[in-house]
């Protein structure tokens, strides 16, 4: 049963979460509690923080995120194809067709990448 494999992951995750929670609780119980202005300010590796952390982001980040998402989805399609293509060893027609299918798929998406490159959206202005 496959779900048993996930039992390992489940137990691992459980221990991971428990470790963090226990550490936080333990340090909260043990540490002294004497706040001051300097201690309460945001820790920025010694820099003095300016303004709140919740600020408006530039839209440029979003374009990167969109392009990432598209190619993330492409990777999803690539994985089972790559895992299975050699499984068609005995069926050459199928193998060639599968290969051609993926070449077309990747070529169409590369057009997207080439377009984005030439369009200049990958440059940070």
């Amino acid at each position: 049963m496959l779900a048993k494999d996930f039992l390992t992951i489940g137990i691992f995750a459980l221990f991971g979460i428990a470790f963090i929670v226990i550490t936080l609780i333990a340090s909260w119980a043990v540490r002294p509690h004497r706040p001051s202005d300097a201690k309460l300010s945001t820790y920025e590796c010694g820099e003095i923080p300016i303004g709140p952390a919740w600020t408006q982001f530039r839209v440029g980040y979003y374009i990167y995120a969109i392009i990432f998402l598209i190619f993330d989805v492409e990777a999803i399609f690539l994985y089972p194809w790559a895992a299975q293509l050699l499984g068609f060893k005995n069926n050459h027609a199928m193998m060639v067709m599968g290969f051609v299918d993926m070449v077309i798929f990747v070529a169409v998406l590369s057009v997207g990448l080439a377009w984005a490159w030439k369009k200049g959206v990958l440059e940070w202005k």
Partner: protein
Amino acid sequence: MQILGFYITGYQVAFVILAGITLASAAMVVLLPNILRAAMFLGLSLFCTAGLYALMNAPFMAAVQVMIYVGAITTMIILAIFLSNRVMRIGFAQAIYNPLLAAGAAGLMFLFLFLTVVNSVWVKSAVAAGPARVGQDVPAVAQALLQPYVFPFELASVILLAVLVGAVVIAKEDVDGDS
């Protein structure tokens, strides 16, 4: 294991836990006033859905769920929240204008679907039961993509291209007026 006279398997325990977290975090998405926290709970809800897929012997679907929905979509939603200039204002809340009406509508919908599920004839078939063979879901997906569903597969690449172009054009800042 036997609890209160019922035999309970580990599978069922895992299902109840995962389904419980999925539903609870989905409810939090709707109920929390702060939209950023709602987005975080959406991520949790989607992650637990991945767990449910794994329980249904579909680890590939679970991986896809984590990669696309938890990894990319939730990030996109949170980014989109930070793109809005309202993030800097204090009243950054989601609006629920009429909670009673919304709850009533959702409840009716649930009742409707529940009665449908209970009152229908469900045909069990070999295909509908899915690949029961352990660890066979990746080859099954690949086989389906390459043989019967090659048209949707190729169409998907064209759709992704069009969507990439459209989304970038809509989101792009047109400062220097390049065409």
